[in-house]
């Protein structure tokens, strides 16, 4: 095998990933324990359990795909957090035990996931488990205090405690998710955590605020709060979904249009896709954050656009074989094209500098890391192509290593070497 990054969707997936299963098993145990504990103590306030359960199931049904292969269920999370935090439902104090909060949340999540399963969309167990763990943590921390009446009776004593619980639960969920992603994507933990916190922050803020709103509103409105509250967060959710949708379409479109060079016979079929997958894998190996990886992916997909300015395609599309000046002209023209899109200036810059050698002759700045990665990934693909022969891969890496000092960044080539022929 030449390397993991040849997998169809680009992201390496380990079917039996230890961290992933550990988390899912833990969530499963939580479910069993909570249901058993609730069965023993009996269900406190059945109406509330049903109402919150219905909201959580509904929210789970409307789960949301976020950029970067992530999932969120803002309505479900807000409902579950509110259930964990609620102090009074109407005139009656809520004395729900943590086990009941966890049991209702877990069962409702499973019910909400059923329709997805029925139409063949498997549940993302990891994401669901992480959400459940966060709710369990909030319930375990808050419920005993609330049930003992230690939170005070006015909002200025209650609110800070609730805010703290929500923040800690969110952080915990991010840490768990980042750990799993570190494992699955070969990313670095600190980078993965930063990405996670950044991407989830707006949603977490909206979800947390909504959870507080519903928890307080339940005191005045009773369970009607659950109903009324669903409409507004639905609006937030619609906006988020549209945003996530167009981001996905954008990437899809760039992927498709980057193939113009293949259709025109300028490069070998699949070249852009392979270079971009390899470049992203290298970037991740080198600890680049997600935003930079996205730019790297765009740049890698479009790195050969400049060849459209050639009247006749370079034989085999292998730019590694043409003269330096021509490489530079192609890169320059490609950057010009991308710059016309007005929104991808940093991508244009990456494409422009891709033909510069790693160590410049003292006159100019070294090219950005992304350019150096694309340069190496492109050269590697020109040498290896779609072949999966491992000796050929090793040869190509060896050839890039020979050139290393001047042409290719040694660090990038090392990362590339690790990816395509991992040390046994």
């Amino acid at each position, binding site marked *: 095998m030449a390397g993991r990054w040849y997998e169809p969707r680009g992201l390496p997936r380990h079917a039996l990933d230890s961290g992933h299963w550990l988390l899912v098993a833990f969530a499963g145990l939580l479910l069993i324990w909570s249901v058993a504990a609730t069965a023993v103590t009996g269900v406190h306030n059945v109406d509330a359990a049903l109402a919150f359960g219905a909201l959580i199931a509904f929210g789970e049904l409307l789960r949301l795909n976020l950029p970067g292969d992530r999932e969120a269920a803002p309505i479900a999370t807000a409902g579950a957090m509110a259930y964990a935090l609620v102090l009074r439902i109407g005139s009656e104090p809520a004395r729900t035990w943590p086990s009941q909060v966890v049991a209702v949340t877990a069962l409702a999540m499973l019910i909400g996931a059923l329709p997805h399963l029925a139409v063949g969309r498997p549940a993302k167990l990891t994401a669901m488990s992480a959400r459940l763990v966060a709710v369990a943590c909030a319930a375990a921390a808050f419920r005993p205090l609330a049930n003992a009446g230690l939170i005070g009776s006015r909002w200025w004593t209650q609110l800070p405690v609730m805010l703290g619980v929500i923040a800690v639960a969110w952080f915990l969920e991010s840490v768990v998710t980042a750990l799993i992603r570190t494992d699955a994507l070969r990313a670095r933990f600190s980078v993965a955590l930063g990405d996670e916190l950044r991407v989830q922050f707006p949603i977490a803020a909206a979800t947390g605020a909504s959870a507080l709103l519903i928890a307080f509103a339940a005191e005045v409105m009773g369970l009607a709060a659950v109903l009324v509250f669903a409409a507004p967060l639905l609006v937030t959710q619609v*906006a*988020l979904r*549209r945003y996530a949708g167009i981001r996905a379409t954008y990437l899809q479109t760039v992927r498709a249009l980057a193939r113009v060079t293949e259709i025109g016979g300028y490069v070998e079929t699949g070249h852009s896709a392979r270079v971009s997958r390899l470049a992203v894998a290298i970037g991740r190996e080198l600890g680049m954050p997600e935003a930079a990886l996205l730019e790297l992916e765009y740049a890698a997909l479009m790195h050969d656009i400049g060849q459209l300015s*050639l*009247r006749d395609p370079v034989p085999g599309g292998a730019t590694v074989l043409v003269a330096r000046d021509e490489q530079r*002209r192609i890169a320059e023209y490609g950057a010009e094209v991308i710059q016309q899109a007005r929104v991808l200036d940093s991508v244009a810059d990456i494409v422009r500098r891709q033909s510069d050698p790693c160590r410049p002759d003292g006159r100019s700045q070294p090219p950005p890391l992304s350019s150096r990665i694309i340069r190496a990934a492109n050269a590697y693909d020109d040498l290896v192509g779609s072949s999966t022969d491992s000796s050929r891969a090793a040869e190509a890496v060896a050839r890039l290593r020979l050139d290393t000092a001047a042409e290719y960044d040694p660090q990038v080539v090392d990362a590339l070497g690790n990816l395509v022929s991992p040390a046994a």
Partner: protein
Amino acid sequence: MDRLSRIAWLYIGAAVAAAVIVVVKGPYAGLDWGQIGVLGLLLVACESSATLLNARNLAWSANTMASLAAVVLCGPVGAALVSCGTLLGIRRGPSIVQRMFNTAMYVLSAYLAGRAFLAFGGHVGTPGQSSFPGLIGPFAAAAVVHVAVNFLLLHGVFWLTREPGDASVRGGLDFKLWLTDLGYGAFGVLIAALWSVLGPFTPVLVLIPVFVARWAVAQFAAQQRAYEATVSALCQAVETKDFYTRGHSERVSRGAVMIASEIGMRPERVGAIRYAGMLHDVGKLGVPTSVLQKRGSLTDDEYAAVQLHPMRGLDMVREIGFLDEALAGIMHHHERIDGKGYPMGLAGDEIPEFARVLGVADAFDAMTSDRSYRGARPIPEAIAELRKWAGKQFDPAFVDAFVAAIERDGWTAPEPAPAGEPLRTIESL
């Protein structure tokens, strides 16, 4: 809104006068001015974070939330007073007249919503535990009235100030927008309900999800603009291969949109056909330049290569998920109504609608621009040609729509190609 007709002035004047009467008349007895102040601030915050929508002069803000909360907490007059905050919104864009009208519109919507709330048996004041769920019915009535009055007043002013042939009037007043507005209106009842528990801290908590939604909407709009710019830049890159077709995609896209709007297609479909127009010829990249620019007739092999281009274009853009209908347009834009086109030889209604629209726009732009083998034809001549072939090559309905749109809005033909302009090749860069 540079020059308003007398009737538009009358309309705006009447709205402002009605609003002033509502505010001045009162009664002010029993109003909690501190509460009105806090809600007014909330409204100013919402108004200041208004987002411009793509249509002309249309911005959207979450004001409904604050005024509906005021309806419950302070009653019709209080809500009208809170809505005066619209005037103070910190945002660039609206002129004095627009601000006046917007304020009057919100004052009237809030006041009438307040009356509806009372008429349906709602009680004004901070709701307590006994108010729910009885409050929901009157509140829903108030929300519907608020959105409806807002819609009618806005639609009126758009209709009176519209420029002839402005298709965006209909597109801008999108049904979904008013549904969104209702959704935000529901925040109003939350603010009112929470007032007894959280007091003036309520708006802070309520604003967070609202601002996140605004953020997501803004991101969406930015991403959409980026998307458009990127597709168009890539299409231009494809066109550099052949100087004579430079700008062709852009113009075909414009023409297709003119036809689509003229026949009253839904805005989403107009958007899709715009992309279809931009992308309809990407497959030409697979045709050798020498064939595309050949003077004189093509050999059979060369003709076969040309005929393949819609399919190659399709191959490329097939993976772009949202383009379903556009894909059919790209694939079949060289079909003819009489069945003599390519690649499938479909006839009449078998040809997808998008393809028939694109066919008209494509042929028209080809006729009115220079080619390596002939000069551009004048527009009237090209129109006559479209008419002549309507029913054989083109769908007559779309030819009529296109001609009507051109006669009203005009058409910008491309600059003539300078003689002997060389292709942009690696040697000449």
